[in-house]
């Protein structure tokens, strides 16, 4: 095993090379963990949805609590208009959460630690939200860049800043998740390496630190999924309820 803390982020092919023209669509370890996460979500929630007890058992409770958790999150941040987008935000939250959590298993691969994955998700959200905004408000959606109550002198500057902040949304959204996951996993790897190199005498300190870091990383894994979902809700709120 390589001691390089970045080695864990390597993507490699599993199985045969799949090429369509010049484009390489091979199944990789990243694809594997995407499939595993999706399947895990589907299996758990399917089990939870199949039971119809009035008093739920554990798996039913899990799925129902997740449902109410996400639905409450959406209604709190984006209001009742965001209800049609519930399925998407739920899927998004669960996908990111499960990818993060599966990444916590040693020797597994963290899908969300790759900027391309998070960026595609964020870009999709950004484009979708922008389209929704223009559909709901027409060109009035551009009022988003003109905050009310700003002196006319400052207005050009403010509009430019607003546009830049709007355009940087997908980048901030994707980099936040990617950087958090990558940094956490790198740090864990580094401390794990310290345990090995310091040996039985000095390894205890980094080992205990590593244990604490694991707890922290699990928290971060949940928190980043939550932040990702809630920021999506906030962007959606801007698009649905235009009031600046």
């Amino acid at each position, binding site marked *: 095993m390589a001691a390089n803390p970045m080695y864990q*982020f390597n993507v490699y092919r599993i199985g045969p090379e799949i090429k369509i023209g010049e484009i390489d669509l091979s199944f990789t370890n990243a694809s594997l963990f995407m499939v595993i996460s999706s399947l895990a979500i589907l299996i758990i929630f399917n089990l939870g949805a199949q039971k119809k007890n009035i008093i739920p058992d554990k798996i039913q409770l899990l799925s129902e609590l997740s*449902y109410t958790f996400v639905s409450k999150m959406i209604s709190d941040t984006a209001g009742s208009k965001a209800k049609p987008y519930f399925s998407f935000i739920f899927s998004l939250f669960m996908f990111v959460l499960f990818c993060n959590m599966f990444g916590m298993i040693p020797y597994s691969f963290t899908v969300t630690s790759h900027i391309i994955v998070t960026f595609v998700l964020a870009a999709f959200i950004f484009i979708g939200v922008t389209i929704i905004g223009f559909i709901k408000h027409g060109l009035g959606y551009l009022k988003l860049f003109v905050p009310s109550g700003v002196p006319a002198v400052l207005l050009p500057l403010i509009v430019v800043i607003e546009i830049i902040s709007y355009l940087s949304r997908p980048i901030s959204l994707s980099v936040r998740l990617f950087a958090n996951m990558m940094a956490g996993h790198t740090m864990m790897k580094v401390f794990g390496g310290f345990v090995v190199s310091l040996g039985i005498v000095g390894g205890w300190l980094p080992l205990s630190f590593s244990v604490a870091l694991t707890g922290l990383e699990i928290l971060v894994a949940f928190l980043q999924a939550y932040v990702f979902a809630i920021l999506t809700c906030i962007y959606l709120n801007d698009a649905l309820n235009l009031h600046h």
Partner: protein
Amino acid sequence: MKKIILLNIFYFSFCTVTVKSAEKGGMPQLDPEFWVSQIFWLTITFGTLFLVLSKFILPRISKNLEQRRLQILENIETAEKQREQSEKNLKEFDEIILKSKNKAKEVMLAAREKVVSEITKKKMKLDEDLNSEIQNVEKEIIELKLSSPKKINSIASNITNEVIKRLIGTDVNESSVSALVEEELKKLSRSTNGI
């Protein structure tokens, strides 16, 4: 010279090692080799996940939740209804008990009155009977009282006549004897009354 060669060898080997590690290392995230593949598989997995969740699983969960909510509401409603019914029943029960108590009181009062009236009737009848009896007896006593002195007188005079006949051996005038006896009796009655 040897030193320089050794240094050179060391330097080159170090360089190659660093170059190799740099090739291996860096950030694999920024290596675009598998970007398209990742985008492709992300689209497929996330797309399927979204479709299956939104078409099959989430509606069922929301249906379950809604059903539970309705069931709970229904249960609360029926519980409320039953509570009201039981309260009503309790009231009716209380009323029935009150009514029956009142009725029992009435019945008792009526029975008492009846008994009392019968008793008084019987008592009155008894009193009347007793009174009439007493009156009869008193009459008899008065009669006896009235008749007894005469009888006593006649008996006494007869007895005195007989005694005188035996003693003297001749008849004595009856009227004088009776007058004497009467006088004596009057004295006696006076003395007895005086006592």
